[in-house]
């Protein structure tokens, strides 16, 4: 689309001005995080503050890796998030496929069950969830986390995947079946490849939810070596002297994967957020 706003008109200047304010207000905190994480300690506290590091250093990252368990937290986050994605996508795709292809008793009930789960916020689930997890002896395990995330991601995943499966014409599968393919072959070779972009997008939403979560880790995990990034970083605060350089470099490293994935799902944001993929 070609720009139609004339920069030299009053209206044009007003719009460019507002757009600039919006961009600065949302992006500046991130710029400041990056800038701080590359500054040496003494420069971080300089008055007046430097917008760009006068002296560029990686010392903050070194301290982060040497003095904290950042790498362990990172590995835990990767493990928990990816397992959740795999599990949710497998169960969710099977469920969504059957919702669009088979007629069975209670199909509509499943849809309303999904919508009802909108009303459940983590804080309302987490207390009884914790007591139950404790009862079955899974407290302080990654399994508990994965169970919680899968349960939370399934409703919106089903909802999203259903719309993607719906958009694949039934005729394609019928053609494959007539050509002698089995139902499974028809699904694997015809339906799944076509639904793949949708499945990947849903997977990314799931990943971001699991990666960003704080409350379930806070409550379900007590050992330091099992913590994931969000709680790990939040706990760096409890030190007597707050090492801002180190905390900023850690924050930057948590944010990067999310922003990279975010770029891939821009097209699906409306569908995803509408289905409750962020719930917050």
């Amino acid at each position, binding site marked *: 689309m*070609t720009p139609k706003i004339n920069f030299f008109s009053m209206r044009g200047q007003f719009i460019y001005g*507002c757009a600039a304010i919006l961009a600065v207000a*949302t992006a500046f905190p991130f710029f400041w995080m990056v800038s701080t994480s590359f500054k040496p300690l003494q420069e971080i506290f300089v008055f007046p503050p430097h917008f760009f590091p006068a002296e560029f250093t990686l010392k903050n990252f070194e301290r982060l890796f040497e003095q904290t368990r950042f790498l362990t937290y990172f590995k835990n986050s990767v493990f928990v998030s990816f397992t959740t994605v795999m599990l949710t996508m497998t*169960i969710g795709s099977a469920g969504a496929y059957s919702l669009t292809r088979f007629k069975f008793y209670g199909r509509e009930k499943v849809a309303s069950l999904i919508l009802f789960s909108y009303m459940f916020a983590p804080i309302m689930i987490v207390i009884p969830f914790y007591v139950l997890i404790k009862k079955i002896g899974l407290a302080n395990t990654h399994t508990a986390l994965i169970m919680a995330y899968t349960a939370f991601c399934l409703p919106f995943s089903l909802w999203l995947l259903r719309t993607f499966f719906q958009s694949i014409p039934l005729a394609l599968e019928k053609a494959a079946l007539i050509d002698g393919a089995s139902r499974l072959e028809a699904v694997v070779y015809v339906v799944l490849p076509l639904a793949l972009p949708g499945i990947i997008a849903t997977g990314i939403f799931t990943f971001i939810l699991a990666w960003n979560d*704080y409350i379930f880790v806070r409550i379900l995990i007590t050992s330091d070596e099992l913590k994931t990034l*969000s709680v790990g970083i939040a706990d760096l605060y409890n030190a007597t002297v707050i090492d801002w350089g180190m905390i900023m470099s850690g*924050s930057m490293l948590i944010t990067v994967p999310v922003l990279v994935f975010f770029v891939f799902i821009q097209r699906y944001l409306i569908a995803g957020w509408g289905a409750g993929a962020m719930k917050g």
Partner: protein
Amino acid sequence: MIAPSVLLICSLLVYPVVYGIWLSLFKKHSFFPDQRFVGLANYAYLMKNSDFWMSVWYGTVYSVSTIFFQIVIGIIAALIVNEAFKGRNFVRGVILFPYVIPTVVAIILWKWLLNNQFGLVNYLLLAVGIIDDPISWMGMDHIMTSLILISVWEFFPFVVLSVLARMQTIPPVLYKAAKVDGAGAFRRFIHVTLPQIRNVLFVVILLRSIWMFTKFDTVWLLTQGGGAEKYIRTLPVYAYMRTFMYYQAGMGSALAVIMFIILVAATTIYFKMFRREEEI
């Protein structure tokens, strides 16, 4: 094939909610298995407890003000990025960042920006001469303001995305007709844009209200239970504290149930008041 999904959602989402209601009738230690049936005693205790009513008040202040500012700023931002200016796609992408990043990072960024000694915000306010002494953003007088500021920053992108998507489908003919009739920009917004985005606003306000009212991590992380925590102790934080600091799982569950009841009541009233014949 839908069975695994239904089973998981029921056992990990619906069952905990039901179990939570059951649990709220007990005096139950959070870690040890002993429990005693007390009927509605937890609720009776809370009704007479001033901390509880304080948290209801703080929760209301927090939700109402953040929702108001999110909606207003969100609509203005959507109007701006709906215009055809250079760099529009860049601004549209950047504007969504605050909503996508982990809450922990959002809080850390703002704690650094609002730091009373070395924070950039105080520095800029002092330099421009708006204030004479640094503001203690995390102190008891300003913590609610800081919390609202951070929350609006973090969550307004959801409003932008939802409203923008709807705005893009408004036929340009309507605006041309209004212009011909001599309507100015403000009247065009009131008489053309607003009626068109009404339905999407209905849903957005509903979802944002549910999510802000049950928001735990943003509020909790700002103080992590220390400092001026008392002055932003909303219902979700109070439920968490009862369960994991006073170890009263029954009381915590009762608070979660109360939250749920308030939500259902408010949602019902909201639907009665604003929803006309048309479907969402």
